C-alpha cells in the first residue's frame, strides 16, 4: 500500500472518477430515452459511492429510487408524450 493511502481511499477515488465520467456522459447525451437509461446507470454508481463513504442507509434508497423508480417514471412519461404527439399529428 502507498504510504498514507488506505485501500478504501483508492476505491473511493476510482468510484468518484467513474461517477464524474458517467455524469459528463449523461449531460452530453441528448436523446431523452438514452438519458433515462443512463441515469439508471449513474444512480447505481452513486449508490456505490454512498456505500464506500459509509452511508448504507442512503445507498439503499439510492439504488431503488435512483436506479429503478426515477428512470421508470421518465420512460413512462416519455411514452405518454410520444403518444400524444402521434395523436395530434393525425
Amino acid at each position: 500500500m502507498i504510504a498514507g493511502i488506505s485501500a478504501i481511499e483508492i476505491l473511493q477515488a476510482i468510484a468518484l472518477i467513474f461517477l464524474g465520467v458517467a455524469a459528463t456522459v449523461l449531460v452530453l447525451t441528448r436523446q431523452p430515452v438514452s438519458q433515462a437509461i443512463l441515469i439508471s446507470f449513474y444512480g447505481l454508481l452513486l449508490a456505490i459511492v454512498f456505500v464506500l463513504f459509509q452511508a448504507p442507509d442512503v445507498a439503499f434508497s439510492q439504488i431503488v429510487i435512483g436506479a429503478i423508480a426515477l428512470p421508470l417514471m421518465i420512460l413512462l412519461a416519455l411514452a405518454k408524450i410520444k403518444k400524444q404527439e402521434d395523436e395530434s399529428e393525425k
Partner: protein
Amino acid sequence: MFLASAIGLAIVLGCGFAGLPPTGDYRGPYGDVVNAVTVPERNVTDTVTAVNFDIRGFDTLGEEFILFVSVMGVLLLLRRQENEPRRRHEDRDKGRQAVPISDAVRVIALLLLPAVVVFGIYVVTHGQLTPGGGFQGGVILATAPLFLYLAGEFGNFRKGVPRTLAHIAEAVGGGGYAAIGLACMGAGAAFLQNVLPLGSKGTILSGGTIPLIDASVGLEVAGGLVLVLIVYLEETLELKEE
C-alpha cells in the same frame, strides 16, 4: 464563452475545495452525541433509524406526508375524467408483431418476485438493527409488482395488484404514524415520545415505538409507490380490453 466561464468556475471551485476539511474529519458535535446516546438510551443499533423515527420523529412525519401528498397529486392529475374519450390501444408501428416475452424473463421475474417481497419485509422489520428501514424496505416492496408486470400481460398485473389494497396500505401507513404519536400522548407522554419498553439490544423487538413506526412507514411508502406505478402504467398503456 464556454471556455471562459469553465475556467472561472474551475478557479472558484478549486479555491473552495482547497478549504475543505479532509475526508472523515467530522467537526459538529451532534453526530458524536447521537452515536454515544442511541445505543444505551434506545437499545437501537442502527443510529440512522433511531434519529429518523425517534429523535426527530416529528420531522419524519412531515416528510412522510410530503410523499403522501405527492402521490395524491399524481393520482389527481392522472385520474380518468368523465368526458375523456376511451381510446383503443393502438400500436405506433401499425401491423408490427409484438415481441413475445421470453421464457427466461418470465422465469427470472417469477423467481425474483417472492425473493424481493421477503427481502423488502426483512429490510422494513430490521430497520432498528441494520441499515434500512421503512422507507427503503417500502420502496423495495413496491418493486415487486414490477416483476409481475415483466412476467406477464398488463391484465395479470391489474388482477395481481389490487388497487384498493394499495390505497388501504397507503392510508393505514400514513395515518398509523400519526396515530402512534397520538397514542404516546394518550399514555401521558409527548407526541411521538418513545413510551414502549425498549426491549433488549440487537433483537427484532428492540427500540420501543421505532419498529411500529418503521412498519407503518413501510406500508405507506410501498402502497404509495405501487399506486403511482399503477396509474402511470394505466395512463400510458391504456386498457386493451376496453
